[in-house]
């Protein structure tokens, strides 16, 4: 696959240095992967992730962080080794179905999802008469189990993308004209200033902060889910969301005031657009995240809950 890519000399020497040790550690021997074969796999992985300019110590750390045992297993499965495949099945079959069930949330869809992936993992697709397994693309950066779950999620999201049009049409029919109506784009100068100030305030945040905001407010993830995505405690996320929401508001108002809008006006500008935006979000979610169909209601609900008291006042 990425065999055509070249790797730099320092990376190559790091691979050569560690290949023996990692080969032994991975237990590739029992799947019939020779040292040469394993070195080629390592080169393949290194070529994919290490930059051309990578230095040797960096490359060494990278190689040592790989899950070589699972990498060897996956590659052995991909190349059609039966003992490897058996091990894979005993270890991951059940987990795969459970994960599919969690993702699809429904028995038959889950089975379909998992079976579809199985086929790809085993490699029914043939390219020039050769069986190509999806497992050959596993690189050992994370655990094999995590990779399987991610691939399932990917598959699921893609499937949704394919069927999205149908789903949103259904919803449109169900919910009437609400979706069809196109909102006039707000275009007053105050709005453009508001937008630029907002963009500025958002740009000043770290990627992590924006990720938290987007996952919580846009995707409607729970605090616990966001926390697990980032590997931190739920209360940390809770504090962070609170802090971010407060500081963003403050920053936007400050930015607007710098541009000559007075405070009251700036604060009012932050509160307008409630319904428009709600619809906008729905539409954009529908466009951008195909999995949003089942999130939409939840998300809309949360927005409405949040908006309701404000709208009353």
């Amino acid at each position, binding site marked *: 696959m990425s065999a055509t890519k070249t790797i730099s000399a320092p990376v190559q020497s790091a691979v050569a240095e560690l290949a023996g040790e990692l080969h032994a550690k991975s237990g590739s021997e029992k799947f019939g992967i020779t040292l040469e074969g394993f070195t080629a796999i390592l080169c393949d992985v290194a070529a994919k992730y290490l930059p051309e300019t990578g230095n040797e110590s960096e490359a060494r*750390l*990278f190689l040592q*962080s790989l899950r070589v045992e699972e990498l060897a297993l996956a590659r052995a499965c991909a190349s059609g080794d039966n003992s490897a495949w058996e091990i894979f099945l005993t270890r991951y079959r059940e987990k795969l179905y*459970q994960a599919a069930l969690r993702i699809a949330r429904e028995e038959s869809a889950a089975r379909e999802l998992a079976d579809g992936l199985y086929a790809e993992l085993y490699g029914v697709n043939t390219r020039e008469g050769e069986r190509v397994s999806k497992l050959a*693309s*596993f*690189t*050992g*950066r*994370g*655990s094999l189990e*995590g*990779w399987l*779950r*991610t691939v*399932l*999620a*990917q598959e699921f*999201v893609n499937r949704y993308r394919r069927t999205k049009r149908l789903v949103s049409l259904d919803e449109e029919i169900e919910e009437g004209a609400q979706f069809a109506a196109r909102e006039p784009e707000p275009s007053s100068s105050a709005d453009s200033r*508001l*937008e630029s100030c907002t*963009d500025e*305030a*958002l740009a000043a945040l*770290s*990627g*992590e902060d*924006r*990720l938290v*905001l*987007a*996952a919580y*407010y*846009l*995707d409607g*993830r729970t*605090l616990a889910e966001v926390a*697990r*995505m980032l*590997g931190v405690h739920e209360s940390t996320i*809770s504090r962070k*969301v*609170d802090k971010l*929401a407060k500081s*963003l*508001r403050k920053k*936007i108002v400050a930015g607007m005031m710098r541009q000559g809008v007075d405070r009251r006006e700036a604060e009012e500008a932050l*509160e307008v*657009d*409630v319904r428009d*935006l*709600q619809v*906008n*979000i729905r539409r*954009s979610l529908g466009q*951008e*995240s*195909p999995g949003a169909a089942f999130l939409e209601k939840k998300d809309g609900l949360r927005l409405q809950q949040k*908006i309701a008291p*404000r709208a009353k006042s």
Partner: protein
Amino acid sequence: MQDVPKIVLKRLQETAGAEAHPDADILAAFAEQSLGESERTGVMEHLARCGDCREMVALALPAHEAVAVAASSRLSRGDWFGWPVLRWSVAIAGIIAIASFGILQYRQRQKSEILSSNLSARNEPAANAVQPLPQSPVPSESRNIILPAENNKQAKKKKQAELPGGLQSSTTANFSVAQPAGAVNRAAPATGAAHGASPGAVVGGNFALGLRIGAGVAAKAAPPPAAQGELKNATPEETSRLAPSLLAPSLSDRQAAGTSSAVQTIEAAPQSAEVTVTTESQTADQIIESPKEQPSQYQSSATLGVVEAKDAAAMSKLELATPRWSISAEGSLQRSFDGGKTWVEVNPDSVAGKAGNAHNFAMKKKAAVQGNPHPIFRAVSAAGTEVWAGGSAAMLYHSTDSGLHWAHVVPSESGVALTGDITSVEFSDSQHGRIATSAGEVWITADDGETWHRK
């Protein structure tokens, strides 16, 4: 939960870029926190913009609760009550029971031995020891005796109450010394309980130790045969180890447990010995003014000898252990060599002053009596052996050797000096520091306090 302005949501979702999505390996590694820092930042940046990938990561999260529940139910069924676990827990429980019983016994025996050894050791060998020891000048002895008082501000009152009484009521000095030692020992747990981190208890221990060393030396001067053999062959370092072990029966529990705290007290001793006394210790005054207490003075001069012999060993240990620093509720500077278990007060003012003559001594004592017993510290910052401590009235001290020697520092820039109380001292490394004052000034140095810059 705080909500965000709608415009924020709108702009958040409109920043989606058209870049390549990270592959499943990277996303899986991200969710497992096994990416490197830069890669992780890149992925988060992408996730912040890309709803699809966020969704994938969220969907691919492992079944956290399910796993935990399954694991715990499996454990509770078999493993915890299985034979292997039970076997080991029984063995461990047994060991713990025996150990705690042993410790209990050891402590009880120690306590009784402290008293008995205090009395017997001083009454017999110490009395003999008085003869061969030379008469030493009064000032040096008084300093040594002051030592405990110097370190002992917490337990001062107690001591003042008990020590003079002991000195006056007894007929021989040996006995009089033994008496307060016992008293302080008994007082130690009480003060320890009262002060939480128990500086009082340590100080009590210090005081006791100072006297114990006296006993040790006395034993050295007229020792029992076995002990003599040991001591003669011992190098200075060994002496410092042997001496505590000789004294072990009379040491308080804490000090018997490890030599580190013993070393710590010994370390404090030579310092204080040079120092003119700033505390208005009534006890000290009484001892100074009572030259008739000859035998106790002999003992203390002997103490000085031992302390000096131990100095080298103590110093080498000191270099190994980087102390922790803190400010007590009363605003005095405290240092701990055992990770915060015990704290000893350090007074940079007295060490920095370092004027050994009697005049200065008297002056300082006077000043102390007039109502500035010790400075109030507000902040301390330590990086390795570098220590900076600041407090009321622009007081700032700097030590480069974990508090052995102090220098008084007055930050100034173009002739204007720092004023007001120092409220915070932060040194990020040995060179770069930042001081905030109650006047709202911030002083910064980038060269270990050589020059200062005011903001």
